């Protein structure tokens, strides 16, 4: 009898607990769809928290002031932990309501139904203000999964003093591949300083991005065919252009610092800053490293030299905001995302290291420095990204390392890249 009573009591408690959980869940669901009642959004910008909080804390405070029913909880995630943390959060459906990440990962998750399609959900004012190439970089299979909020183009950073020491005009930086090799050679001969800083330590996206940008300049257009989700240079019809680009990369090694495979991007930034190389092709993040020298004119920036097409065309890689499908408050999340993308807030975010994302933002920047950077965006093309991009980059990066160490000819490198890419394409 006593045992039965206990069992009944346990059942009653369990029923009550279940009812409570269901009611709480229902209340949450109501907040999610109808935004009735207070809502807490979780928000994550992958990167260095000590730099990001001073940027985003005031933005969040202003948003909460304008939306008293919404609280934003900013959480931290460093890039080093991003891949593993993201997979755990995605598997446990605990991804934050609004998160910043890179398109390859976001598209991979989108393909698995984990990311909200934002097509038609964003204001026309915002989508028309974002540079078209950047907006496109956030799309996969015609759907807008990512709203770009940070981006890089490849630029030529150079030391004006070393140019002058070699009898070169720093106001007329090299505009073609041949001019760049000649200038590098002349600087080395005159000053003893290697003309170029080159990096290929990470076997992946960084060197692939250089190759993709140079190839885009060689053909005067995108290196990525978004209709096929494949690289243009994998097409046999583009063999000559691809081989010429790889040959140029190999020629750069002769003018660069020794042991290029031991240098990453951060290393070559230090080399340029310290006057140990004269030119480096790198993203806008270089500016942080040489801030003072840019201000006093010792260091300058130019568009990357043109290939056979005669045009300087850089690939543009982006990072941006997305909303996971596990978000309990998608409407509030979209409202916050739109707020993050207002001109003033994007200007604040760009200070973390980015090219302009919005046309209205670019209009506020003045001077040759910003004109060069903005032009690289307007003339740029979206970097090719698909869910299997990391696998494609791994192949390209490894083969480029073999090319840059002199172990492989440009033709063999192209052949191996294609063979490796074909294996990835076949898996689709």
């Amino acid at each position, binding site marked *: 009898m006593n045992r039965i009573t206990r069992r009944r009591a346990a059942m009653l408690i369990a029923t009550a607990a279940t009812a409570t959980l269901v009611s709480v869940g229902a209340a949450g669901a109501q907040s999610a769809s109808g935004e009735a009642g207070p809502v807490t959004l979780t928000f994550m910008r992958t990167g260095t928290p000590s730099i990001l909080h001073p940027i985003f804390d005031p933005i969040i405070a202003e948003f909460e002031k304008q939306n008293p029913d919404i609280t934003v909880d900013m959480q931290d995630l460093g890039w080093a932990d991003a891949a593993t943390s993201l997979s755990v959060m995605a598997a446990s459906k605990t991804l934050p309501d609004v998160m910043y990440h890179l398109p390859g990962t976001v598209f991979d998750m989108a393909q698995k139904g984990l990311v909200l399609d934002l097509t038609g959900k964003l204001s026309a004012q915002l989508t028309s203000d974002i540079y078209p190439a950047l907006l496109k970089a956030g799309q996969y299979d015609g759907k807008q999964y990512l709203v770009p909020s940070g981006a890089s183009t490849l630029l030529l950073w150079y030391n004006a003093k070393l140019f002058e020491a070699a009898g070169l005009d720093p106001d007329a930086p090299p505009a073609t591949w041949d001019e760049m090799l000649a200038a590098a050679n002349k600087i080395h001969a005159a000053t003893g300083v290697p003309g170029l800083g080159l990096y290929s330590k990470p076997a992946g996206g960084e060197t692939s991005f250089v190759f993709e940008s140079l190839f885009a300049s060689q053909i005067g257009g995108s290196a990525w065919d978004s209709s096929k989700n494949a690289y243009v240079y994998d097409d046999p019809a583009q063999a000559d252009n691809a081989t010429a680009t790889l040959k140029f990369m190999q020629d750069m090694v002769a003018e660069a610092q*020794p*042991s290029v*495979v*031991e240098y990453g991007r951060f*290393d070559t930034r230090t080399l340029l800053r310290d006057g140990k190389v004269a030119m480096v092709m790198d993203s806008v993040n270089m500016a942080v490293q040489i801030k003072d020298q840019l201000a006093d004119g010792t260091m300058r920036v130019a568009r990357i030299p043109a290939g056979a097409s005669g045009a300087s065309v850089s690939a543009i890689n982006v990072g941006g905001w997305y909303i996971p499908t596990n978000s309990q408050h998608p409407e509030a999340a979209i409202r916050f995302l739109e707020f993050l993308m207002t001109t003033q807030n994007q200007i604040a975010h760009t200070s973390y290291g980015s090219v302009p994302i919005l046309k209205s933002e670019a209009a506020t920047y003045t001077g040759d420095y910003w004109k060069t950077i903005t032009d690289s965006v307007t003339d740029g093309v979206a970097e090719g990204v698909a869910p299997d991009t990391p*696998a494609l980059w*791994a192949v390209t990066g490894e083969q480029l390392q073999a090319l840059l*160490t002199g172990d492989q000819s440009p033709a063999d490198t192209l052949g191996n890249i294609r063979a490796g890419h074909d294996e990835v394409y076949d898996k689709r």
Partner: protein
Amino acid sequence: MDAVRRPRFSPRLAPYLFILPTVVLFVVVLGVPLINLVVYAVGDSNIYQGFTGWNSFENFRYLATSRFAKTIGVTLVWLVGGVAGIVVTGMIVALALNRPIPGRGLFRALVIIPWVVPHAFAAAMWSWVIHPQFGMLNEVLLRLGLIAAPISFLSANTALATVIVVRIWQGAPFMIITLIAALQTVPSEIEEAADLDGANAWQKFRYVTLPHILPVLMVSTLIISAWTLQIFDTVYIMTNGGPSRATQIVALDIYSKVFVESDLGSGAAIALVTLAVVAIIGWWALRQQEERAA
């Protein structure tokens, strides 16, 4: 006087009941991940959703590629070079520190340092030390006039040797500690008898010392081998598997498949096969030792 209560279970069950908690712990800690590994390896799996469907052993196709063959070759060189280096270095240092030299206690304490330095930190530190432009080692060699130009320690031809040396630096202290402990169990009267018989240093080591420390040496070598095969962070930080896969060991290949290429299935397949191979080698080595002891 109260009657003695009879136990509820047969005495024959008692040993099994005593080991039950351990068995349960093993099933939870090892069994569940192992089952997951098998499931992921035989199916279409990704890091976000886990197993999503059967795919006819498609994940094992990668194991038959030339890329994986190169990984195996690199791993074998890494394993043999690293373990042999650790054993030889450990033996030499242990023998030296077993002699009554001044400051022996201090030296014994100092040799442990590389072992307690976290692998990630050690890898970053060594990367800086050997860097061709900013590294201390090249700077010292240049100033001493021993080299004319900086040495590229992480080029395609030298990277594997360099990471093996760092592995030896990290792993030797464990071998030194265990061998010093084993050397202290060698009976001094047998060594004295060998001296009286006119045995030279090599003969004393070969016929007196080595047989006594062999069981410890075998087990330590087995442990070091397993650890060396598991190493990931050192190589990842120093070379990320490059240049051109010159240092792409199995642990990096698994990471690359799972977290870079988002191919959990192939990563699990590599891990499963590696686990099986290591288990067989470990079982064989332990059996050999048992037979020798018998």
